[in-house]
């Protein structure tokens, strides 16, 4: 038997406090890229009771993803948007999860992200990361943006930090460890970075948002 909206909401409010829970439930977030970073970020946000999460990817679940991404074996071959939608709805069926099954580029980014407040960059390709970040900073300067750079390998988890780069732009990661240098992506370290991004999103929602927003 699935609990009602009110039951889940009050359980969350009991953990987080009524004020924070109200802000979380009104927040509009987007996760761009649903791999090791994005699938974990989205799970964190939905577990925390964020009311709206737009999940964006064009790719399908592959067996090589299972080592660090939230998907299950029987989801191999599904679109990541559909597979993650199922997972998120099992965590909180009342969260508004919007699937956007496209490859983001500088032409479609402004429109797709127009109605979101907090944007998490979670791509793997460095040029796609830079394209999204530049496009959001140039075209959507009112958005909060949390990007990631450097989470590959078995280096110390403590090297992963989140720092504020500009007024509404934050960067998580160690800034250096590149997947192309042969170290690979390990679940634990990728999840540390994803959790940094999700945590910054939740902090910003707490600090910057008003309870009556939208």
């Amino acid at each position: 038997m699935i609990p009602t909206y009110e039951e889940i909401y009050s359980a969350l409010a009991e953990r987080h406090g009524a004020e924070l829970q109200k802000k979380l439930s009104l927040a509009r977030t987007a996760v761009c890229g649903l791999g090791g970073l994005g699938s974990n970020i989205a799970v964190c946000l939905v577990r925390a009771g964020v009311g709206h999460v737009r999940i964006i990817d064009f790719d399908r679940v592959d067996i090589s993803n299972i080592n660090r991404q939230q998907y299950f074996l029987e989801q191999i071959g599904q679109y990541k948007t559909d597979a993650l939608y199922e997972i998120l709805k099992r965590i909180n069926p009342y969260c508004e999860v919007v699937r956007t099954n496209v490859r983001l580029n500088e032409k479609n980014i402004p429109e797709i992200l127009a109605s979101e407040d907090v944007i998490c960059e979670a791509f793997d390709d460095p040029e796609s990361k830079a394209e999204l970040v530049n496009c959001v900073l140039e075209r959507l300067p009112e958005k909060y943006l949390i990007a990631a750079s450097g989470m590959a390998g078995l280096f110390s988890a403590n090297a992963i930090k989140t720092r504020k780069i500009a007024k509404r732009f934050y960067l998580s990661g160690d800034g250096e460890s590149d997947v192309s240098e042969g170290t690979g992506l390990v679940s634990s370290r990728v999840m540390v970075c994803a959790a940094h991004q999700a945590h910054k999103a939740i902090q910003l929602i707490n600090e910057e948002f008003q309870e009556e927003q939208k």
Partner: protein
Amino acid sequence: MVRINGEMIDASGKSIAQLLEALGYSPQRVAVELNVEIVPKASYSETFVKDGDSVEIVRFVGGG
């Protein structure tokens, strides 16, 4: 002197494009802030730094 990623460098008069090249950054893999304002990618060649400026070059590496 220009502050670039926290380090003082004698770079006054150089364009952002020249700075990126001199410091070994790929322009396709960075975002650049000049005095906490984003520098549009299309303006890297026409944006020049002067003494007292602060430049933040964010470099993206692969993995996610």
